[in-house]
């Protein structure tokens, strides 16, 4: 069953008719040709599909496109300016925080969302004192970024990059 929806994707307004079964991830990749979010597991178990959905990081594989009518989606592609990558992307480049690159756009969106969450004072499971403001040390970054698996094993460089970008 098809349904017409409107999405804002990386600043562009897109109106399309989707099968209700189509996930947001598949709508982006297969219908709109926006392939920056990746499909690594399709079940919310790897984080490669992470986008910023209405400003918050979210796994785009576990939400139907039709449920996101009128939503704002920002991908790693949309985070970069014409000639300058986003500071998180710049830091990943500087620190070689990726290898095959397939989990990378998800890492980027997740890191950008995560930095906002930390800035808003959101705690994590490793936050010692839930009443205090959050200091984003390496253990905090590791915990908060654990929803993005990287099989090439770039975690140590990713953490360094995010620390740099956070400064």
């Amino acid at each position, binding site marked *: *069953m098809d*349904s017409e929806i409107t999405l804002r994707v990386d600043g562009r307004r897109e109106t399309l008719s989707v*099968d*209700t*079964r189509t*996930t947001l991830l598949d709508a982006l990749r297969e219908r709109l040709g926006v392939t920056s979010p990746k499909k690594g597991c*399709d*079940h*919310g178990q790897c*984080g490669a599909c*992470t986008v910023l*959905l209405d400003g*918050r*990081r*979210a*796994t785009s594989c*576990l*939400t*139907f496109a*039709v*449920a996101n*009518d009128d939503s704002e989606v920002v991908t790693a592609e949309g985070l970069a300016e014409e000639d300058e990558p986003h500071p998180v992307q710049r830091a990943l480049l500087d620190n070689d925080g990726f290898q095959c690159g397939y989990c990378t756009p998800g890492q980027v969106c*997740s890191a950008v*969302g*995560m930095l906002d*969450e930390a800035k*808003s*004072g*959101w*705690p*994590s*499971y490793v*936050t010692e004192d*839930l*009443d205090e403001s959050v200091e984003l040390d390496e253990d905090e970054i*590791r*915990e*908060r970024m*654990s*929803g*993005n*698996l990287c099989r090439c094993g770039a975690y140590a460089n990713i953490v360094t990059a995010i620390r740099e970008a956070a400064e």
Partner: protein
Amino acid sequence: MKPFDYQRATDADSAIATVSRDPEARYIGGGTNLVDHMKLGITEPGKLVDITRLPYDSVESLPDGRVRIGATVRNSDLAAEPVIRQRYPVLAQALLSGASGQLRNLATTGGNLLQRTRCSYFQDVTTPCNKREPGSGCSALEGWNRHHAVLGASERCVATHPSDMAVALAALDADVLVAGPDGQRTVPVTELHRLPGDEPEQDTVLRHGELVTAVELPSLPFAVRSRYRKVRDRASYAFALVSVAAAVEVTDGDITDARIAFGGLAHKPWRATAAERALHGAPATEEAFRAAADAELAEAETLRDNEFKVPMTRNTLASVLRELTQQEGS
């Protein structure tokens, strides 16, 4: 996945009416479990009613000291809520130990409560499972059951409930507010989920068409000192092998009140009433902690791969109580 109709609910009454009269209709919230199940072929709704725009998205402190959490409040928002962090740290920690940041941003309070077991055989439609297909048999009973139940299981099903949040809610004696075609009712969270018995296909006591609208936390002053400890195979982003939610009140070195629940051990969040009774009035000592654990675990029945859960639970409970009582004493 079979084709389905999608509707966005604008008011609760019509949503409840729509789902109630259509046996193939389901509510959908954040979708992190239901979408997964639809992809896996575990469930095939003909209609989804999206409840995320219903006005259940706030956390309110009530005049009597209770706190009401709307059913569509996202897990991440709830964990960040100051009243939760200050008064119910066990709940904030439980939420934060679950899934990942990007999933917690989607997942709702109601959906988290109603998520279904992660038993590998339940999730694999090519293997028998009584929960998924009543009467087909339980593959886990004599299969891979590392993550399975040691308390309250049946021959029909040894699955565990995967929620962390629900374990904290069970310890806190939370209530679940439910609206249905026949009006509203309140279900204590400890009675929401069922043990498998002969009907493992029934996860909860909810009837078709009933909608979780809110969760209410009692005013429980000593919960300010509470903790959720999750033991898992990965340091993060993994389901619990064993988890402990606990709040204790210590007066003059003796435990005067305790609330304890276990995760990863049963088909439901396991409220550890025997452990609580054992602790009541006992001195805050290692011996008492272990005796309390033993009281609760006396009935445990282990399977091929999950014998470790008994000592792991005992040790984890002792560890949490040690930490909480030391904290209290200092």
